[in-house]
């Protein structure tokens, strides 16, 4: 069965510091992988996605993620965090079109000044 693990429930990063949020997935074939961000009381906004090809994916707001098949990982990174990045981040995996996304439990990012 498909599953997504986000090992870190809560991370605090200083403003301007780099960020890495971890995501591990379990799926038999090459999955479709996504990172979404959710601000308090809001819906989900897509940051980036991986379907195939280049394993380093660029997204919006300066985020990037790297797909590592050998490690079943799709970690999210940002070189310099801004206070506005404080939010909940969800990694998700999808098998194919028209089916559910399986979400991880999320990582809450706090940004300290």
């Amino acid at each position, binding site marked *: 069965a498909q599953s997504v693990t986000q090992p870190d429930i809560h991370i605090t990063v200083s403003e301007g510091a780099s960020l890495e949020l971890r995501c591990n997935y379990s799926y038999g074939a090459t999955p*479709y992988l*996504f990172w*979404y961000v959710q601000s308090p*009381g*809001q*819906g*989900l*906004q*897509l940051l980036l*996605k991986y*379907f195939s090809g280049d394993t380093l994916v660029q997204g919006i707001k300066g985020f990037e993620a790297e797909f590592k098949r050998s490690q079943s990982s799709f970690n999210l990174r940002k070189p310099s965090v801004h206070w506005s990045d404080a939010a909940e981040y*969800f990694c998700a995996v*999808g*098998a*194919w*079109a*028209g*089916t*559910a*996304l399986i*979400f*991880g*439990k*999320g990582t809450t990012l706090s940004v300290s000044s």
Partner: protein
Amino acid sequence: DAMVIQNPRYQVTQFGKPVTLSCSQTLNHNVMYWYQQKSSQAPKLLFHYYDKDFNNEADTPDNFQSRRPNTSFCFLDIRSPGLGDAAMYLCATSRDRSDSNEQFFGPGTRLTVL
């Protein structure tokens, strides 16, 4: 701008009183989804429509129903809300089954049950 719209953004209902949440989309997508997200948890799929074809998740309670009268609109009906149904309800769309499953989310409706 093309988008996914949910109304209302906040809904308060009484225990056992039926409630309907609305979702509309201007993306002309074939697939529409309803997710339930409880506090500090991941979104969980309740059901989805592929065009008019309704697909219910196995563990979705019978208390939850859905209607899709046309491509643009999809409704979530909770027949007898319990305290445990208080959550954020997220509507999402994707273009087609041949797509890469990118889903576009609405802002959500936060349901409070008194």
